[in-house]
Each structure stands twice: as structure tokens, then as C-alpha cells.
């Protein structure tokens, strides 16, 4: 019997061929309709945000497919949008400090604040994040954040030493201090080390000269300037024992993998990176994008963000934090996202030890970039 079936499949008769062809032709309209119903959402974001671990469930539940275009850095993001026709990107994930520029250039849609549950935010600042509102109108919704400070190898630098940026100048780590190759976080940290506190981005000439001088004094300690992959590898294989310009978003991934590395916010203060979603100007899928932003703010979405494979971020909603504590207590404790923990990121913000990443106020980005090139060549 089985042999007969096999023979029938391998050598179909003319009648069978006609039967299968007819059935296929009749089925085609239904197949096409099923495909047509899948909506494509064009996403512009940092790497990882359009991957299955983040958007997979949402795609399945809403019959949508994300088409991510990844960028590295706010400048890169602005350039990609500037070079594309309106409506190219439906959803844009932006670093918070660049939202203002997105809005000024008319690249994003206005949002309805009533669509998002701002009452559930863990900190009041997150409801009215700088640059996200203009003239009382909402343009972007914060979804996650993280802190930058001293990232270090625990075998080379003690937890006590890591409480100050001065550990970067420690003799034992000469030629073993790496930089994430972007001027903004590294120079921001040096500005904090110089005691500029909340005014770290608002430097007058004397303050800017001092930041340059201090940065140049770090040059003999520097072992290299790295992108994400290089930073990750050099910390993992012990080539670099301390890293300036990053935080738990890189060391967290390594730490979970068992590497003896960690990140802390030192006494001089840390810098917060903040990521926010916007709806691209002219998007025809604004309703679906709104639903996606609501999903990312939901407890499930917040947990996915906190556990993101590419780089973890902190929850911004109370319900999100509660859910994380419920489903992944270990990760919640590792990152201090438990009420009452001394390194609770929200406590650090409330204590004024965290400063939101911004762009230079009295110098141009070009000035900072020029100095960064000089520094790398020093």
C-alpha cells in the first residue's frame, strides 16, 4: 500500500497532475490574501530593537512584520531620515537628546498624550522628558533608559576604586583603558570628573579647556577606541580592564555570561541614555505604530526591553518593574531594579547623581568631534 502511494507521488498520472494544478490555482487567491494582510512596519532604530526577541510576539499578535533599518548614533539617524522621502519610516527609535532636532526638522508626527499611560511612570521626569514636548504638544514617548559610568574588570579594579572616574588613571590599568569611540559620553564623563555636575554639557571656554586638558592626561592610559563589537570583545578577553563611555548596556550582557565585569555610577555622577519612540512623519501605519508603542510600555514590553539580547535597558513603568521582579528576579536584582536597593536606578536619578545625556550647549558637536580626533592622534 505504502509503495503504491510512493509511486503515485513520484509518477503522477495526467489526471492527478491536472487535479493538483487546479487545486493550486483555486488556492492562490487565498494565499495572496493571507500575505496581503501582513502589514510591514518600517523601523529606524539602534541594533536589536527590530529583532524577534523584542517584536516577535507583537508581530504574531497583530499580523505585522517589522522591517528594521539600524543606525549607530543620533547623527547617523538624522542623516538617514534627511536622505529619505517622508513616510519612509513608520516608527523611529531616537536617543532622547535628538528628539528635539527630529521635531524641529518636521520628521515626526505629533502624538496624543492620552494614548499613553504616563501615570504609571517610575519618575516624574519621564512623563515630561526634556525635548519630548514642544508648546504643550507631545512628539515622543520614552520607553527605556540606562546609566553610563565606570565600567571595569573586577579583577583589576576594586568596587571601592570604581566609585570614582579617577580609577581610569590608576597605574595598574595603564594602556588598558578603552574608549567607546564616540565623543559625547566619554567627554561627558570627563566633564563630570572635573566637577561640572549638572552643568556638564554647559561649559564655558575655561570649562571646555579644562575638559580637554584632563582628557589628554588620560591618553597614556588608553589602549584603544572601539565600536560595540570591539568594546565587547576587549572587555571579554581582558585586553581592556576599564572602559570609558559605556555602562551596563554592554557589561550587563558580559556579566550575564559570567565575565568578571561590571558598571557603577561613581560619586561624581553618571550619564543617562534615554531611548524614545516617535511616529515618522507621513506614516500610513500610525495607528499600528501607536499600538506598538503602547505594547512597549506594557509590562510585557518593558520586560522584553529589560531582557533585550542586544543590550538591556531599565524599565520606566511601575507595572513593568513589578512584572520584571515577578518573572526574572535575578535580572531585576542584578540591575538594581528592586525598590529599596541602593543602586536602584530611580533612586540614583532622584538623588541627583544622574545627568541626562545632552549635546554641548556652548560648543558645537563639530568642536567636540574635532577635539576627539585630536585626542585619538595625541
Amino acid at each position, binding site marked *: 500500500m505504502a509503495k503504491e502511494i510512493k509511486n503515485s507521488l513520484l509518477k503522477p498520472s495526467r489526471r492527478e497532475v491536472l487535479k493538483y494544478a487546479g487545486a493550486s490555482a483555486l488556492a492562490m487567491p487565498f494565499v495572496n490574501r493571507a500575505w496581503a494582510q501582513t502589514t510591514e512596519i518600517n523601523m529606524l532604530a539602534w541594533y536589536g530593537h527590530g529583532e524577534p526577541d523584542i517584536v516577535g510576539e507583537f508581530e504574531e499578535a497583530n499580523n505585522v512584520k517589522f522591517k528594521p533599518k539600524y543606525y549607530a548614533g543620533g547623527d547617523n539617524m538624522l542623516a538617514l531620515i*534627511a536622505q529619505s522621502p517622508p513616510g519612509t519610516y513608520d516608527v523611529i527609535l531616537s536617543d532622547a537628546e535628538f528628539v528635539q532636532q527630529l521635531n524641529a526638522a518636521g520628521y515626526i508626527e505629533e502624538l496624543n498624550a492620552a494614548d499613553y499611560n504616563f501615570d504609571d511612570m517610575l519618575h516624574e521626569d519621564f512623563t515630561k522628558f526634556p525635548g519630548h514636548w514642544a508648546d504643550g504638544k507631545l512628539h515622543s514617548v520614552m520607553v527605556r533608559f540606562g546609566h553610563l559610568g565606570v565600567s571595569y574588570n573586577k579583577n583589576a579594579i576594586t568596587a571601592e576604586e570604581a566609585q570614582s572616574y579617577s580609577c581610569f588613571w590608576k597605574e595598574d590599568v595603564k594602556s588598558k583603558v578603552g574608549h567607546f569611540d564616540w565623543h559625547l559620553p566619554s567627554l561627558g564623563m570627563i566633564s563630570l570628573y572635573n566637577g561640572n555636575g549638572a552643568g556638564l554639557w554647559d561649559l564655558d571656554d575655561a570649562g571646555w579647556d579644562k575638559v580637554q586638558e584632563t582628557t589628554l592626561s588620560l591618553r597614556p592610559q588608553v*589602549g*584603544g577606541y572601539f565600536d560595540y563589537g*570591539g568594546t565587547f570583545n576587549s572587555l571579554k578577553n581582558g585586553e581592556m580592564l576599564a572602559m570609558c563611555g559605556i555602562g551596563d548596556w554592554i557589561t550587563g550582557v558580559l556579566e550575564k555570561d559570567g565575565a568578571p565585569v561590571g558598571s557603577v555610577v561613581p560619586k561624581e555622577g553618571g550619564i543617562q541614555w534615554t531611548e524614545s519612540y516617535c511616529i515618522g512623519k507621513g506614516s500610513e501605519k500610525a495607528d499600528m505604530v501607536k499600538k506598538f508603542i503602547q505594547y512597549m510600555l506594557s509590562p510585557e514590553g518593558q520586560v522584553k526591553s529589560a531582557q533585550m539580547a542586544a543590550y538591556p535597558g531599565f524599565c520606566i513603568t511601575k507595572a513593568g518593574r513589578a512584572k520584571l521582579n515577578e518573572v526574572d528576579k535575578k535580572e531585576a536584582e542584578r540591575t538594581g531594579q528592586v525598590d529599596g536597593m541602593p543602586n536602584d536606578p530611580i533612586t540614583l536619578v532622584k538623588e541627583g547623581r544622574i545627568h541626562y545625556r545632552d549635546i554641548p550647549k556652548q560648543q558645537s558637536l563639530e568642536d567636540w*568631534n574635532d577635539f576627539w580626533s585630536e585626542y585619538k*592622534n595625541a
Partner: protein
Amino acid sequence: MAQSDPNKTSIAYRMTWRMPIIVWQFLFFIGPLALMVAMSFFLVKNYRMVEAFEMKNWAKMFGRDYFWDSYLYTFGLATAATLICTLIAFPASFALAFKVSANVRRWAIFLLIIPFFTSYLVRTFSWYVILAESGVVNAMLGYVGLGPYTMLNTMFGTLVGYLTLTLPLVIILQTISLAQVDRSLIEAAHNLGCGRMRTVLTVIVPLAKVGLIIGAVFCFILSFGDFVAPYYLGGSKPPTLPILIIDQTKSGQQWPRAAVVAITMMVTLFTIAFAAIYAAYAKRGRT
């Protein structure tokens, strides 16, 4: 009166054969080059390039010490890579050309081509495992009481990356060139009492000069323009010109300034290539 073959002399026939290379050159070399030169005079406003004819980008880049520091470093590093690569490649090429059978030579050339089947980036990253302080080389040195030595994120690391890229190609070019040396001239030199080393230096090397120089030029060109090795194995410390190009585009989308750096690199490479070709053929032309 003899009639010429119209198929061979007609302009259409000749143009048919010439057109592909002419079209190719215009589409993929002359056109983009012209665009890049024009772009170097453009300005960037609000992260967008604006058409203009301003010298600002040239003045800005040429007026910065870091540009010239990067230029000298890149030039020096590419020169060092060329010398090291040529010297390392020569004994291998010599052996393949003169000391092994034609069959072994064919297999050796095939094996030298194989690295090009894999991604250069992957090959570069594999050096992490070998050169790291906790890597294979330091582990072996550790057995004899040496090290550990820092090899990654150094000039040495960059040179290793350059050689990974260029050494197989240079050996192939040298081997092909040496294999074509007239054996009777080598035998004549021996018969006239010329020692082995003198035969190599005064007979074989001059006869294979063109291939040896072309190999060196390829090594210089590839090293001078390589981004991967100085970034991932040299730690971008200090940055080479290709890294400077990336830096310009990454922050502020300064493509016009990146174009200035790229044009400077191209002018340098043209100068080196033409000087090398002149050196390779000059003597032959005079005799």
C-alpha cells in the same frame, strides 16, 4: 590593390570591443570620482549636504594637525607593511618558483587563493583568539617563561592584519613573476662562477623586477586603504586615514570632509603607483 578586412578595421568593430571597458570606467570610476571631487566643495547644513563651491572643507582638513598626523602614520605603516610583506613573501615565492614541481606550485597557488574565499573581517577577528594576552601565542610563550606580551591594539596588531590581507596575493604575484625567469640565464650565471646569493640579487631579482614591484604596489595600496586591521587589531590608536573618513561621516555627517581625505588618499596612491610603474619599466625602456 589589396583590400583590408572590413571586420578588423572598421571603427564599429573596434569600438564594440572597447566599449565595455570604457563604459565600466565611466560608470564605476570616472563618474564616482568626479562626484567625490564635487562633493568635497559641498557644505553640510542640518545633516544634509548642500551643493556649493566652497574651499572650507579643504581648509579645515588641511589646517588640522590630526589630519597630517594620520596621513604620516598611515603612509609609514603601509610602507612598513610593504617592506615586511615583500621580504617575507620572497623566500616563499622563490621556493615555489624554483624548488618545487609544477604540480606542487599549482596546489600551493590554489591554497594561497583559498583565504580570499572567506571574509577578511572574520579572518581579522580570528586574530583576537591568537593575539590576545590570554591567547594562543602568549600561552605558547608562557611555556618558555616569556610574556605575556600585548599584541592587540598595537601597531604590531595592525601589521598582522595588513599581512593577513596582502601576503597571499603578494606571494602569488611574486611566484608568477619568478616562474617566468629564463632558467638558461640562471644557468649561465652559475657557469660564469656567480654564487647563489649573487645570482639571486643580480640575475633573478632584476629579471623578475616588474612582478616584484607590482606585488609591492598592491600591498601598499591595500594596506593604505584598509580600515579593518587598524580599527580592530590596532585599536584605532592612533587612527589611520580610513578611520578618519569614518570619523568624519559618523559625527555630523561630514561627507564633504571625508571626500577631502579620500581624494588625498587617491592622489597619494596614484603617485606611488605611477612612480612604481616607472621604476619597474624605466631600465627596460632605455636598453
